[in-house]
């Protein structure tokens, strides 16, 4: 059924608000700390750098605190969270190196809170606000729960700290809140606009009960809530100490300078690059289970002097399904690429960087959807696709500069390979978990080197994949393998990093099996594009084998290493699917690599031979795509390769040896 507008939802359709406007609306309800320009101008370089680096280390400490207190493998082992320090109106001064998508819109949530909560119920020392409403900000889908805390110094609201992490289940029709049949948000977890869940340093039981009651794993979510409280408390202790040592005015002056420094240095870098426009597209196949549609996000990046404009005109309208994202998701798709490709030598202060960016987007499109569109998968659907298209556009910009082109990277792992398990674990307790194996995605190729194999995800610089043993200890599952997959990296003069696969069975659950939710597009077409003639990475590939011989194999002392050795009936799994796994069922999930760079026929033949030896490229791939003929000992047959490449150069362009159309 089509999305029907909901009266009153416009209050939550948040957009970035200027500091001046936020201050105007807050008025006298909360006294906001300010610092004069003279204090900023008087900062000496040494003090500036010492405090700036301290702010960076505080976000790292927040991350450590969160990990040590959380009980969720998604957080403790995979780093699917982030932390940030913001100024008094929410501008992000320092974002942590974890999942930068998550922290890209904390500013919007804090600003909204100031504008809507300052008068009632008020903002006071010891308060913390919880939010998982992506229309407001703070996260990209409902599973991204942010907790942000005002820091008061001498009675003035001096700054905010925020922690946001993926919660494994917050209700909704399907386990993991990943309702693959969803047509709108009412199938999904309830979005919660900012609520004061910690007041005067104490958790409000009534609000916490309302929050946890929706979850299938409330104790785990409660622990994560305390982990985020702990992260904020650690940050507040450190910031208090910093203000005591240097004075609040000096610390705030550094925050202002960091924002300005980030802006100034990004503008300087942009000024070195040529003006022009770059347009690209990112597709997604399937919006929900049973859907066979393909949807596009189009972006035109225009670079004029020292400003970037991202224009998403041409993007498809929002769709019935769970793949839409809000404006916060759109920003979450842009900022990680800016940080990693343009800001390696610039402070990671999104509040300053956003000043160099303009965004044009029409509400009602799949990466700027209106309430009540389905957004349960936003972070790894339309937000991720936004990252893909922005990556291509920015790469095009950088490629036109002889020095800066060294920083570009093709699209990384085209999407998140979502596999969620739920049921009863080996200890008899209920469990839900998102398998995070695809944190080991392939990184995109660069202009001078191959992409890093299973190197991670560009948007989560410190993302990790949990050890197989940790997953087996925590959940009722047993791996047959987790390994890199040949040919999954996009071919090119420089090859995209390869992705990988995992293959496992339910194991040791009192129920015998587990529930499985799959949400993994990129099966009809690859989602990690190549650049400059480089090919896209491989497609996503998921197979479920029913009633296999795996237990007989184990009993005979064999560990199957190929799907063909397992018997049973194979089901190729569509992009969105929900089912049960029996004890003899095997699930194989193969995620994507990174896109390639440059024409594959220009790749050094010896590098292709080395790839074949290392199982990065198959013999078939070497011959058919790279045009490399290998001798029986695995070395390059130079003459045969030269001849084959000449023929392939013609045939792939649809020409015969006389350069006539093959089909003419």
């Amino acid at each position, binding site marked *: 059924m089509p999305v029907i507008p909901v009266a009153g939802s416009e209050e939550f359709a948040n957009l970035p608000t200027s500091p001046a406007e936020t201050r105007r609306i807050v008025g006298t309800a909360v006294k906001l700390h300010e610092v004069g320009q003279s204090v900023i101008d008087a900062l000496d370089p040494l003090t500036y750098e010492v405090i700036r680096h301290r702010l960076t280390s505080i976000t790292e400490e927040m991350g450590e605190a969160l990990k040590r207190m959380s009980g969720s493998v998604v957080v403790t082992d995979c780093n699917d969270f982030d932390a940030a320090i913001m100024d008094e109106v929410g501008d992000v001064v320092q974002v942590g190196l974890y999942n930068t998508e998550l922290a890209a819109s904390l500013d919007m949530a804090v600003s909204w809170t100031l504008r809507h909560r300052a008068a009632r119920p008020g903002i006071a020392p010891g308060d913390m606000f919880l939010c998982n409403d992506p229309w407001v900000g703070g996260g990209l889908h409902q599973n991204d729960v942010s907790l942000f805390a005002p820091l008061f110094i001498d009675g003035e609201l001096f700054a905010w700290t925020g922690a946001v992490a993926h919660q494994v289940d917050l209700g909704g029709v399907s386990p993991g809140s990943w309702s693959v049949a969803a047509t709108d948000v009412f199938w999904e977890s309830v979005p919660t606009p900012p609520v004061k869940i910690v007041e005067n340093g104490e958790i409000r039981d009534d609000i916490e009960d309302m929050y946890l009651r929706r979850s299938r794993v409330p104790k785990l979510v409660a622990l994560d809530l305390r982990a985020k409280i702990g992260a904020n408390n650690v940050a507040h202790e450190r910031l208090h100490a910093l203000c005591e040592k240097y004075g609040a005015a000096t610390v705030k002056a550094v925050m202002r300078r960091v924002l300005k420094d980030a802006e100034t240095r990004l503008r300087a870098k942009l000024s070195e690059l040529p003006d022009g426009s770059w347009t690209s597209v990112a*597709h997604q196949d*399937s919006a929900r289970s049973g859907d066979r549609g393909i949807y596009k996000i*189009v972006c035109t990046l225009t670079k004029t002097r020292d400003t970037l404009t991202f224009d998403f005109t041409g993007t498809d309208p929002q769709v019935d399904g769970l793949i839409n994202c809000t404006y916060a998701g759109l920003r979450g798709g842009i900022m990680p690429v800016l940080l990693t490709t343009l800001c390696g030598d610039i402070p990671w202060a999104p509040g300053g960087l956003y000043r160099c960016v303009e965004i044009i987007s029409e509400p009602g499109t799949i990466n700027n959807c209106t309430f009540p569109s389905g957004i349960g998968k936003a972070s790894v659907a339309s937000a991720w696709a936004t990252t893909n298209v922005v990556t291509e556009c920015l790469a095009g910009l950088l490629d036109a500069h002889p020095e800066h082109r060294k920083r570009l990277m093709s699209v990384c792992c085209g999407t998140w390979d979502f596999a969620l398990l739920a049921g009863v674990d080996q200890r008899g307790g209920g469990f839900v978990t998102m398998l995070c194996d695809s944190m080991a995605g392939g990184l995109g190729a660069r202009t001078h080197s191959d992409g890093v194999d299973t190197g991670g995800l560009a948007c989560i610089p410190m993302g990790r994949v949990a050890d197989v043993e940790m997953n087996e200890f925590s959940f009722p599952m047993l791996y047959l393998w987790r390994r890199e997959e040949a040919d999954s990296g996009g071919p090119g003069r420089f090859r995209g990093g390869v992705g990988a696969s995992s293959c496992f069975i339910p194991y040791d659950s009192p129920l015998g099996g587990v529930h499985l939710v799959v949400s993994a597009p990129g099966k009809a077409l690859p989602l990690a594009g190549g650049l400059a003639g480089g090919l896209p990475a491989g497609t*996503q590939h998921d197979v479920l084998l029913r009633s296999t011989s795996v237990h007989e194999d184990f009993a005979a002392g064999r560990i199957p290493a190929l799907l063909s050795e397992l018997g049973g009936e194979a089901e190729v799994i569509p992009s969105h699917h929900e089912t049960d796994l029996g004890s003899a069922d095997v699930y194989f999930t193969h995620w994507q690599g990174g896109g390639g760079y440059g024409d594959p026929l220009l790749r050094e033949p010896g590098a292709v031979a080395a790839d074949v030896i290392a199982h990065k490229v198959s013999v078939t791939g070497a011959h058919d795509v790279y045009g490399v003929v290998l001798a029986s000992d695995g070395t390059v047959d130079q003459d045969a390769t030269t001849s084959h490449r000449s023929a392939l150069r*013609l045939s792939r362009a649809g020409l015969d040896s006389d350069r006539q159309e093959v089909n003419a």
Partner: protein
Amino acid sequence: MSLFIDDNLEQHSDGSVTCRHCSHLVGDAAAPMNAARVTETAPRTAGPSVREDAALFADRPIVFRRTFCPECLTLLQAEIVPGDEVSSRHRSLIVGA
């Protein structure tokens, strides 16, 4: 003064765009590959990286679209996209940038 657009293309001060490998004219600043050769084949001709037939998952036709230098046949752009959709991949550098 010329400008390298990427690994394969070079834009000149008069706005013309040539192949960096053979110097053949392939387009201009507004449309750098408008004189390039374009082919469309089945996605699985991209190689073993395409694991299954697209028709298993989608109703729209999917194609492997490649753009070549018309002279030396260097691959300039490759994409696997819906075949009923014109390519959205464009670029245009300001002449003299």
